[in-house]
């Protein structure tokens, strides 16, 4: 795919195949084992870090390590390093579009109720009433079986009724 920008190739049939034989890069066994070792070390690191409470940084570190690991697998095990650049473009574009999906959806869900406190929220700010059709507040095991507090009855029971810890679903 590298030469699709190279339009002088009039003789090209498709992209590049002037060459007849398959020329694949052969990776050294020792190198592959080294990559594997690096992956194991990273796994140990990510487990170790997760045992320490760093607050929200935990997620960040975990994702960073996972991305490095994924990068190693894609680059060396999956041969992207020696592959046509276009395959890397395809691979990256998957993450770009996934990013669009996540970012735009979160943009909606995280900003509901900002303009009008009764818009897109599950708890009515004025009296703490839960929206009908929604979920019952948290039922802790101390309060017995949850099944008794059906979702259908959620409508007008103020969350405080009968529950000590009415943690409302967080819609901010």
């Amino acid at each position, binding site marked *: 795919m590298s030469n699709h920008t190279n339009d002088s190739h009039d003789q090209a049939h498709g992209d590049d195949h002037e060459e007849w034989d398959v020329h694949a890069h052969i990776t050294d066994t020792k190198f592959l084992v080294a990559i594997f070792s690096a992956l194991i070390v990273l796994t140990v690191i990510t487990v170790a870090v997760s045992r320490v409470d760093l607050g929200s940084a935990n997620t960040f570190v975990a994702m960073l390590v996972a991305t490095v690991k994924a990068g190693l697998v894609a680059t060396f095990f999956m041969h992207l390093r020696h592959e046509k650049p276009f395959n890397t473009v395809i691979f990256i574009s998957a993450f770009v579009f996934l990013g669009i999906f996540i970012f735009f959806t979160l943009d909606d869900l995280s900003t509901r109720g900002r303009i009008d406190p*009764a818009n*897109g*929220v*599950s708890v009515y700010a004025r009296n703490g009433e839960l*929206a009908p*059709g929604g979920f019952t507040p948290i039922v802790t095991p101390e309060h017995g079986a949850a099944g008794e507090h059906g979702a259908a*009855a959620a*409508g007008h029971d103020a969350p405080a009724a009968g529950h000590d810890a009415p943690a409302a679903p967080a*819609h901010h």
Partner: protein
Amino acid sequence: MNHEPTVQMPGQWSTFAPNVDFIFYFIYWMSVILFVGIIGAALYFVWKYQRKPGVKAEPTGHNLPLEVGWTVAPVFFLALLFHWGFRGYVDLTVAPANAMEIRVRARKWSWDFEYPNGAHETNNLHVPVNRPVRLVLSSDDVIHSFYVPAFRAKRDAVPGMYSMMWFQATHEGTTNFFCAEYCGAAETAARGEHGEEVFSGHFSMIGHVVVENDATFAAHLEAINGPPTINGVVATPAQWGAQLYRSSQCYTCHSVDGAPGTGPTWQHMAGHPVTLTDGTTVDVDANYIRESILNPQAKIVRGFQPVMPTYRGSLNDRQIDALIAYMQSLQ
């Protein structure tokens, strides 16, 4: 402001309707001009440059300024549209602080309106003229959408979530509202008031918005909060219950003449024992009726599905008493 419908638009009955219509007609006329321009040119070319023997098509050239021009020029037009559209949307979305609040509860397939004084009404919304009204919508079951064409206002009622819309009516009279989000239909027809076939569903979630002056509106709120007057006489509880049977659309599931329906018939029900799905028997007394209205899933009569929505919040205690009295009168 034009209260009468035009060919394309319903009458303008709210403060923001003229602005919405202005944007609508602006896009409309721009579209007409563009359409006539583009398609007129295309049809003219088709006619003018028809295939003639010996006449060859002229080779296609390049015209960079033209191409850049028609790529860039629409950007300004579109930016203007976005700007106006967004400004109009802000008007539609941000309610004035002094707006009167009405709670709207949607369910399959009716609307319940709760006024600030706690009075409830089904499928009819009364609002005062020239005062901002804020509707806080919620839904008991599936997504519905409250739509008043004359106000140019629409908002979905989503289960598990509140949503808000507002308007300020500018014209006294009666107009229609609709459900705009598809929400299904009953599998079978129910019996209407006069025994006729009535289908209910998404398309039947239609009602009236009655815009009235402050005095009429206040009187209406008082009237619906207690028993109605029939021919100048205050109704008995049973009469009121009969009226609620129709206005709250109980009749779509429950007959009063023994005819089968989605729910048990009310004829000979009150005061008699019924068998429940778990095999036990209960007497249909005031307590059972009250429980069945407020928490319908608790005790289901054998042979029926647990499909009734709760009327908690949409019928007040006096109304429930009236319904009980009505049921007890059906012996």
